[in-house]
């Protein structure tokens, strides 16, 4: 069995095609559609499982995960500000990207675990939803301090009514209400086609990541180092937390992946409007040009091994 899930090859194809400037471009509407399908699939799957869980038992785990979402950007900020010598707004914006999560990375991790037949807690999409938001609030506070002029309403609208939260949460609710039997008629689209949709999505992500390479060359070494080091540190933290919360090996690997991933949908949109002085090219080239490819190609197998180690050591 190869070290990584063959689905990653689609990402490499997109990346190579993008770098070679091949005549390949998915229409934006198709990319939107793929994202919508992925978000709903993940939400539905989580919702169905959530129906089987006593909600009270999940509450402490949920609180711990939110706390992690607050701590990650706080830890990243001083590194960016002082080691990276970035402007305050840029450091805060990048910190927010890294505190939040990437649904695409999560989806690849799910596919990776399924490919290796590793079981995990299926309600983890709940954590995905929870981790999306805290980092954005922390990022805005880091950039602007406690400022009465902060456009909180704009930011809240962008996040709460953004595609990812609406569809993840909506999917969770539908799955929860409908239950496993109710979901059966739509399984063919959302679950059976999941890997095919993910493959096409990764092809486009490869093209997008290739587009970030140019700006990466301009912004230099620090972002590349940060874009690899930050997910490693955060992933270790996430794995530790997963073990402490009593998650299975698969669940621990997924929480590590969530901690290690950096947002490229919800956070950029919210930051663009709430912290306009931050340069979006910096945060996006780090999150899309470095961290996403790193996590897909090397990170996820690493977090899985880490989860196995922790469980072996900790019992």
């Amino acid at each position, binding site marked *: 069995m190869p070290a990584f899930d063959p689905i990653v090859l689609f990402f490499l194809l997109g990346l190579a095609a993008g770098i070679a400037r091949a005549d390949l471009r998915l229409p934006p509407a198709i990319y939107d559609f793929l994202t919508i399908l992925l978000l709903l699939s993940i939400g539905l799957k989580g919702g169905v499982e959530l129906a089987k869980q006593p909600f009270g038992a999940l509450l402490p785990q949920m609180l711990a995960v939110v706390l992690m979402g607050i701590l990650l950007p706080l830890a990243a900020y001083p590194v960016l500000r002082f080691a990276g010598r970035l402007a305050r707004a840029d450091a805060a914006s990048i910190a927010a990207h890294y505190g939040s999560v990437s649904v695409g990375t999560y989806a690849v991790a799910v596919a990776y675990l399924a490919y290796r037949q590793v079981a995990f807690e299926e309600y983890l999409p709940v954590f995905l939803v929870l981790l999306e938001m805290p980092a954005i609030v922390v990022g805005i506070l880091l950039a602007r301090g406690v400022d009465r002029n902060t456009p909180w309403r704009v930011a809240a609208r962008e996040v709460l009514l953004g595609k990812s939260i609406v569809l993840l949460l909506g999917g969770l609710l539908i799955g929860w209400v409908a239950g496993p039997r109710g979901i059966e008629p739509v399984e063919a689209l959302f679950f059976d086609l999941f890997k095919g949709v993910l493959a096409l999505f990764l092809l486009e992500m490869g093209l997008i990541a290739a*587009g970030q390479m140019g700006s990466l060359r301009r912004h230099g070494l620090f972002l590349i180092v940060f874009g690899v080091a930050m997910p490693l540190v955060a992933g270790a933290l996430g794995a530790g937390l997963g073990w402490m919360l009593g998650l299975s090996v698969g669940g621990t690997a997924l929480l590590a992946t969530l901690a290690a991933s950096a947002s490229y949908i919800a956070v950029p949109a919210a930051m663009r409007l709430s912290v306009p002085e931050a340069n979006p090219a910096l945060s996006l080239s780090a999150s899309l040009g470095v961290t996403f490819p790193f996590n897909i190609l090397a990170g996820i197998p690493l977090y899985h091994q880490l989860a196995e180690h922790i469980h072996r050591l900790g019992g």
Partner: protein
Amino acid sequence: MPLEQRKLLTIVTEAALEHELVGEIERLGAHGHTITDARGKGGRGIRNAGWNLSANIRIEVVCTAETAHAIAAALRQRYYGNYAMILFFSDVEVLRPEKF
């Protein structure tokens, strides 16, 4: 057929601003607007609409010269510093002046 002079204000900017700008334009007295997706290249690099954050929009507003200048001044003050935005005026002639 009598024709009246109006200004056509064209704004090309980041798609992320659409919601905010539409509100602003209406507050400043425009009666309507037309938005199209756009892509191109400018001072902030290639904006190829490959995905949300590199997408541009073109907003067109036909209105009186005063409204056009008020909108331009407001946008210039608020967005020129941090966002990819250009705007320009053209003279147009309209058949139904009460609409604009």
